[in-house]
């Protein structure tokens, strides 16, 4: 038995005439891992996940889930997966319990309706019609539908986009519970805090390719340093090379009207910067610092912000 939950090689998806949604993507996710695909809208995350799920045929490349290919025995493979799509509207007039019974009937084994209701915290809504649920409750029900099979591999495509904090917490709990059972989760998100909190490893995807891969902590340390300093000056008289030469500054780049510096140690870098500006008589109009995050990794790698 392969110890990889997901393995894909050279994944390409081309939509004629000229859209290249996925451009040669490789991925390996171990069993029991929670893996995050991060990237801005249009980066190819959803196309990638739907190819993995066997819903979209790739133009080229290989996919193996739990050691099986989609061409082997698709129904047997589907029985071991749980899936939420980015947007699904379930039947408006059915109740929560009726919808779950419908999805449960598609699987030979799995959890009971009562068990999944408890997992996503919808016990009180079991007799409520779908049309009367809030956005967060609808999302939790979609998640519950993915959990009825007690999946070995759970795919979540932007599970928490636009959710209230309570629903977000519930979804996070589900991911933690799935991992506790040794099962695998692949999720896409553009919330960096979510990825840092839930994922063992993340891949940052941009324009259909993986541009960085590793644990959140590793990526931040490697690419973004540990601290970020952002500042603006009244006059545009700052020299990039001079900034880089300052002690404790790992990298410097223009960011809109100001500058972004990656700094290993704040207590060395900030005084050096202030001294430099003062010596040249450049007045400072704004200064902010924060701990480096995955967001900074993305900005550093692409020069763009995630939610632009």
């Amino acid at each position, binding site marked *: 038995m392969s110890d990889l939950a997901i393995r894909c090689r050279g994944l390409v998806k081309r939509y004629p005439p000229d859209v290249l949604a996925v451009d040669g993507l490789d991925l390996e996710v171990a069993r029991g891992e929670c893996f995050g695909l991060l990237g801005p809208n249009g980066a190819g995350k959803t196309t990638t996940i739907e190819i993995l799920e066997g819903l979209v045929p790739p133009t080229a490349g290989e996919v193996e889930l739990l050691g099986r290919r989609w061409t082997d025995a698709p129904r*047997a493979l589907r029985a071991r997966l749980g899936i939420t799509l980015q947007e699904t509207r379930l039947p408006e007039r*059915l109740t929560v319990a*009726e919808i779950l019974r419908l999805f449960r009937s*598609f699987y030979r084994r799995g959890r009971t309706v009562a068990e999944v209701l408890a997992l996503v915290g919808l016990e009180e809504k079991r007799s409520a*019609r779908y049309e009367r649920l809030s956005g967060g409750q609808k999302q939790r029900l979609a998640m519950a539908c993915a959990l009825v099979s007690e999946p070995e591999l759970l795919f979540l495509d932007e599970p928490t986009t636009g959710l209230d904090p309570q629903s977000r917490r519930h979804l996070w709990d589900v991911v933690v519970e799935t991992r506790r059972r040794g099962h695998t989760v692949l999720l896409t998100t553009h919330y960096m805090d979510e990825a840092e909190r839930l994922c063992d490893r993340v891949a940052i995807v941009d324009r259909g390719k993986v541009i960085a891969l590793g644990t959140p902590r590793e990526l931040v340390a490697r690419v973004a340093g540990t601290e970020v300093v952002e500042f603006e000056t009244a006059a545009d008289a700052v020299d990039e090379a001079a900034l880089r030469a300052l002690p404790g500054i790992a990298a410097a780049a223009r960011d809109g009207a100001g500058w972004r510096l990656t700094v290993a140690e704040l207590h060395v870098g900030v005084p050096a910067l202030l001294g430099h500006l003062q010596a040249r008589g450049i007045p400072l109009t704004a200064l902010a610092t924060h701990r480096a995050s995955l967001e900074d990794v993305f900005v550093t790698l692409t020069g763009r912000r995630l939610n632009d």
Partner: protein
Amino acid sequence: MTDPAPHPAARPGLAERSPMVQLALARLRSFYREPEAVFWTFGFPILLTIALGIAFRAKPLDPVRAAVVAGPGAEAARAALAAGEGVDVRVLGAEEARRALRVGQVAIVIEPGAPPGYRFDPTNPDSRLARAVVDGLLQAAAGRRDAFAARLERSSEPGARYVDFLVPGLLGMNVMSSGLWGVGWVIVEDRQKKLLKRMVATPMRRGEYLLAFVALRMLFLLVEVPILLGFAMLFFGTPLRGSVLDLAALLGLGALSFAGLGLLVGSRARNSQRVAGLIDIVMIPMFVFSGVFFSSENFLAAIQPFIRALPLTALNDGLRAIMNEGARLAALGSELLVLGAVAAGAYALALRWFRWS
């Protein structure tokens, strides 16, 4: 890999484990929780039957319209005619009376005298009828005695009235529109909502999803048909001369072929506006040509082969033959052939073209 056997008490029932049952239940619940859908399927055909049945039953008899030319004896002639049943008579000046005849306001002009004169148009049936009625009344007033009084039996036989033509047509129309809307529209809604894609991501068998629609259509027939037919039999005395089983078999085949057409129109469309257009394209020619409200024999001989090939024509003709003439199913070979061929063709194409995501 081994799994512990589930505890017997915790094992859900057969109905709960069957995807077919759950899919059909989901459809059924979505339907009856949508009051508009229930009205269009069950209420509307009944309202239509009532409205049309009454409109055509209550049609009053046209009176015989006559004019008497003013002059001596005119009043006596008028009184004699006015005493007759269903005669509308007036006294007019000579010139006026001729004009009234010319423009069709009256069917006959009587010039009083001994003997009286009739001015009428022998090529016009109304006019000829008026002459016979007027002559009888005036002769009786002048003293003619009837040789005998015939026994009269009034007849308006079920099976030959307009409402008897209409009810099978409405049944057929209902089977057609429930098949196309109930299958085609609903499938496209599932596709548009991405529910179809979500279900395809489970181990659900695709055939079961489609079969649930067809099974449910058959089940609906058992409600739709008795309601409409029972109503028509109760209120209009609509006949059912053939066997109930033959009728059920024909309706079943009809529902199967329209469910197939529903599957076909719903096989690729991505949104509900598009499928609504497709449904109209399929249904409107059949509304017009297939003899729902009036006989399709009225159309040109040149397009009759096309009309005969329409599944609704086959269904309507078959229903009328069974209900009004008491025909056996075995005598409806060409109708069954058309319905069977449409069903086979529609399912084959729909399965081939179906877009699952």
